[in-house]
C-alpha cells in the first residue's frame, strides 16, 4: 500500500517555503482548493507553482503572496473571464512566469517521469516560447534533421491533486478530463491527493495507480468553489465575483 492517510496540516508541513508544487485539475475542475487554502493560510512563501491550465487555485496563491515562479500554459477563469491576480502579476513582473504550451509541459513532465534530462517534441517549433522559457531549446533530430523542440525535465517536489474517489489501497478514480494529473503523479517526488469519498477497489478502472500516490487526505467538498465531476459543479458565481476583483480567500471558502 503506497498511500497513507494524512491530515491537511501534514500536507502543509510537506510543502516548505521555496518548494516546487504542481497543482492538479484542469481549468475550473478538480482543483485541490482545500489544500491550496491551507498553504495560503500557512503563509507559505517563494513557491514555484506548476499548473497545467490553472484557475482559482493559482489565483489564490498569487493573491496570498505565496508564489515566486509560475510554470503554466495558461491561467484563466473561463467562462467567467480572465484571471485578475495572474494578469497583474505578469504585467507588473512581480513573479517569474515561465510560459509553456500544453503539449510542451506534458513533454517536460514525461521526461521527468521517465527519468531523462530532456525529451524532444514536435510542438512549439518556430514559436517565441524559447525566448521566455529556458526549459526549451530548438534543435534538430540527430537522425533525419527534422526541426524539434528539446524540452528539459521539470523537477517537482510535491504534486497536490483532488479526485472524486479513492479506494482503500490508494487507487484514484476520475471521470471527465484527467488533464496532466497522471503525469504530475509520476513526475513528482511526492504525490498527495485529496478525495471526496472512498469507493470499492477496481484497479483496472483506476485513473491513477496507487503506485504513484504517497498520501491521501479525506477532503469532501475539497475542490469547491471549483467543480469535481461528477460530484458537484463549479460555482460560476464565485468565479465571476473573483474575476470582477473580489480576490479574497473568504469568497473561496465554502
Amino acid at each position: 500500500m503506497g498511500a497513507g492517510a494524512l491530515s491537511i496540516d501534514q500536507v502543509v508541513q510537506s510543502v516548505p517555503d521555496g518548494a516546487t508544487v504542481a497543482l492538479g485539475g484542469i481549468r475550473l475542475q478538480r482543483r485541490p482548493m482545500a489544500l491550496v487554502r491551507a498553504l495560503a493560510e500557512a503563509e507559505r512563501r517563494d513557491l514555484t507553482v506548476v499548473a497545467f491550465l490553472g484557475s482559482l487555485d493559482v489565483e489564490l496563491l498569487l493573491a496570498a503572496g505565496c508564489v515566486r515562479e509560475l510554470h503554466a500554459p495558461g491561467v484563466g477563469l473561463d467562462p467567467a473571464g480572465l484571471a485578475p491576480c495572474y494578469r497583474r502579476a505578469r504585467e507588473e513582473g512581480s513573479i517569474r512566469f515561465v510560459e509553456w504550451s500544453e503539449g510542451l509541459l506534458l513533454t517536460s513532465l514525461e521526461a521527468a517521469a521517465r527519468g531523462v534530462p530532456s525529451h524532444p517534441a514536435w510542438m512549439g517549433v518556430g514559436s517565441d516560447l524559447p525566448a521566455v522559457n529556458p526549459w526549451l531549446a530548438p534543435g534538430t533530430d540527430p537522425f533525419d534533421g527534422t526541426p524539434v523542440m528539446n524540452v528539459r525535465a521539470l523537477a517537482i517536489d510535491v504534486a497536490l491533486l483532488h479526485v472524486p474517489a479513492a479506494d482503500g489501497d490508494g487507487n484514484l478514480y476520475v471521470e471527465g478530463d484527467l488533464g496532466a494529473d497522471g503525469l504530475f503523479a509520476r513526475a513528482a517526488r511526492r504525490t498527495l491527493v485529496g478525495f471526496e469519498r472512498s469507493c470499492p477497489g477496481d484497479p483496472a478502472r483506476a485513473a491513477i495507480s496507487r503506485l504513484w500516490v504517497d498520501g491521501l487526505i479525506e477532503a469532501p467538498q475539497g475542490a469547491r468553489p471549483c467543480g469535481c465531476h461528477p460530484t458537484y459543479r463549479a460555482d460560476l458565481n464565485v468565479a465571476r465575483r473573483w474575476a470582477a476583483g473580489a480576490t479574497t480567500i473568504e469568497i473561496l471558502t465554502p
Partner: protein
Amino acid sequence: MTAARSGSGAAIADLLTAELAREIAESEVSVFAVTTPASVAAALAARAVALPELVIAGGFTALDAEPIPAVSLGEAGLFTHGLPVRDWPYDTFCLLARGRVGVATAPAQLDSTGATNLSGIGPLGRPKVALPGPQGLPDNNCSPSRVWYLYGVHSPRQLVERVDMVCGAPPPSGATRRLLTPAGCFELASPGWRALWLTPGGAELVAQAPGFGIRCSGDEPIRTEPDGRFLDAVRAADPDEVRTIEFAAADEAGRRWALAAERESHRDPVGR
C-alpha cells in the same frame, strides 16, 4: 453587421456555428476536438447531419465524449457518463501529430502568416496586457491537422499583420487553416489569406483590417443564410443558445452568461 459586436449576436452565431458544422462535415477529419460551446454545438450538428462516426474529443484524455454545450463545460467539460479516464494524457497530441483531428479556436491575435497569440499584448515576456497564456496554440499550429479560427467579430484588434508574440508559428505547408468571421470564410493560402465566401457587407469588414491582408477577387459568393440542415441541428444540439455568448456584445454576453450560469446551477453535475 459592423466590425464591433452588436446586440444579441444570435444571427451571426447561427450562421458561423452552422457553417463550422458544415465545414467539419465536409472535411476529412475523423476526430473533432471541442473547445467552446459553439464548437461543441457545431461538432454535434456535423455528426447529426453527415458524420455519424465523428469522434468528439476534448481536453486531453477524454476521447469519444458526449459533450453538452453548456456554459461551464467547453473543453474541460467532457462529461463522459462513467467512461473511465485513460491514464495516458497524450491522446489529443497524438491525434494532432498524425493529422487526424480538427479543432476550432479563437486566439487573441491571428496574423497574415497564420501565426497566433494568446499570451499578451506588448513586449515579449513583459506584456502590457497579459492574456491567458499560449495554451494549445503552439501545439495546434505545428500540426498537419485542420484548424478553424472562429471569431464573433471581424476586427483589426484580432486580425493583425503580425502577432505581438508568436505562440503558434505559421503552420506547415499544406496544412489547412480556415477563418470564420462575420465577414465570411477565409483560407490561409501562401501568401496570406484569401476569401472563400463573404457575408453581405463582408468586403467592407475585410477592408477595416487591412494589415491582415485578406485577398478578395470580387467574385466571391455572398452567403446570407446558413445551410438549413446544419442550422436545425445546431439548434437541436444547443437549445439554450449558449453558443451566442461567444458572439454577443459585452453587456449582452454578460447577461446571457449570468442566465446560463443560473440555469446550470439548478441542474445536476452531469448537466441533465
